[in-house]
């Protein structure tokens, strides 16, 4: 009985955290999509799917998820220094200033809501660390600790992270006129089997092995703040 209960709790917590209704400001991020759509480099649903593919394999899976996993394990064993290490390593790996800023902002936004939803000592510690500048509170790292505080399994935390990331981008693509609501669901379905591969890739890497290679998207991110009109923060 109690076993079923906790499985149910954990499934519901998973849905709650990965729901686009969960308030963490993600609807203000386009991860470079707005720039690329503006310059005409992304115009069709297929372009968008290719963009997702590149981001997932060459950035999210090879760095964000690695830091997330590391932070989760550290959080699980209450190794606070290791959580900070994951944050600092990811920060060092993230060279584009606006991306760093966005990662920090969405991390803080998530932390703010999570602290009031799942009160937890480590979340309080993280908030203190951020406010004294000991930690950047990057989104994947905060997500890991929040997932642990909400009682999620590591595999579920990774899925929740990827699902939120991909659906958030689909929402941005719809608002940017790159695709419609039906195509968006098809893209989500098409990309779903790849998420497992992306997770497997991340599991094999250590913090030292993190890498990213998304030059086109990086350039778009750097040019974003110079767009004459902007709907998104990135």
């Amino acid at each position, binding site marked *: 009985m109690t076993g079923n209960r906790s499985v149910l709790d954990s499934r519901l917590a998973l849905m709650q955290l990965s729901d686009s209704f969960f308030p963490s400001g993600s*609807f203000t991020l386009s991860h470079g999509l707005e720039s690329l759509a503006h310059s005409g480099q992304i115009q069709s649903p297929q372009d968008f799917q290719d963009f997702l593919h590149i981001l997932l394999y060459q950035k999210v899976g090879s760095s964000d998820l690695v830091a997330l996993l590391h932070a989760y394990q550290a959080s699980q064993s209450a190794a606070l220094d290791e959580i900070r290490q994951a944050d600092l390593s990811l920060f060092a790996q993230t060279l584009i200033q606006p991306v760093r800023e966005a990662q920090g902002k969405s991390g803080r936004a998530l932390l703010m809501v999570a602290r009031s939803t799942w009160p937890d000592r480590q979340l309080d510690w993280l908030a203190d660390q951020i406010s004294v500048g000991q930690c950047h509170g990057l989104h994947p790292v905060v997500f890991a600790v929040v997932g642990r505080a909400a009682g999620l399994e590591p595999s579920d935390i990774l899925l929740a992270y990827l699902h939120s990331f991909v659906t958030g981008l689909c929402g941005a693509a719809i608002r940017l006129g790159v695709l419609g609501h039906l195509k968006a669901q098809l893209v989500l379905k098409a990309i779903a089997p790849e998420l497992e591969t992306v997770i497997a890739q991340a599991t094999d890497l250590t913090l030292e092995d993190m890498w990213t290679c998304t030059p086109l998207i990086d350039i778009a991110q750097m040019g974003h703040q110079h767009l004459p009109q902007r709907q998104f923060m990135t």
Partner: protein
Amino acid sequence: MTDDIQSAARVGIGGPVGSGKTALLEGLVPRLMQQGIEVAVVTNDLLTQEDADRLRRKGFLPSERIVGVETGSCPHTAIREDPTMNLLAVQDLERLIPQLDLVFIESGGDNLASTFSYDLVDTYIFVIDVGAGDDIPRKNGPGFMQADLVVINKVDIAPYVGADLAVIRREVAARRREKPVAYTNCKTGEGLDQVVYFISETVLFQTSQTAVKVI
């Protein structure tokens, strides 16, 4: 840690596109500053930092007291379903300016249904203008009905757009009952003292009631 920072009062300003939200701020801020109140502004522009830039150009507030937040073209989400980015902006202002008394949050222009979350603001003002027609009160928009103060702006243009102020006054009183309303002309400052009075009475001489403590 951060919890001992005194929160500033937060006042939302919402209403349809072009109704005069920024113009109202341009009138209110100097009047409040004259009373020694420390003010800052967060704007939620739909597309650009235009409102933030316009306020900066005015020069009545140091530019670090004006922050623009991009809303991913969802102005109502940013003030209601997911106000986290606005809360972070407020929090950054509070850190930067510990003596801050009051933060205005101007919503991106939206429709008659836009309302603020009370997890974001202590009170909010809904601005409509007479140019949109004297039948606006009759449409019962949630923003108009629920706002703590309604500002009917641009009273000066009523004769030119065929809007009857007497009709508006009657309808507003019937629908909002005892909830406050101010009639303003932001070009001349007419009616702004009433708005200042409302703000002083409702939020200024008490600390923020906002429940969610931010990091």
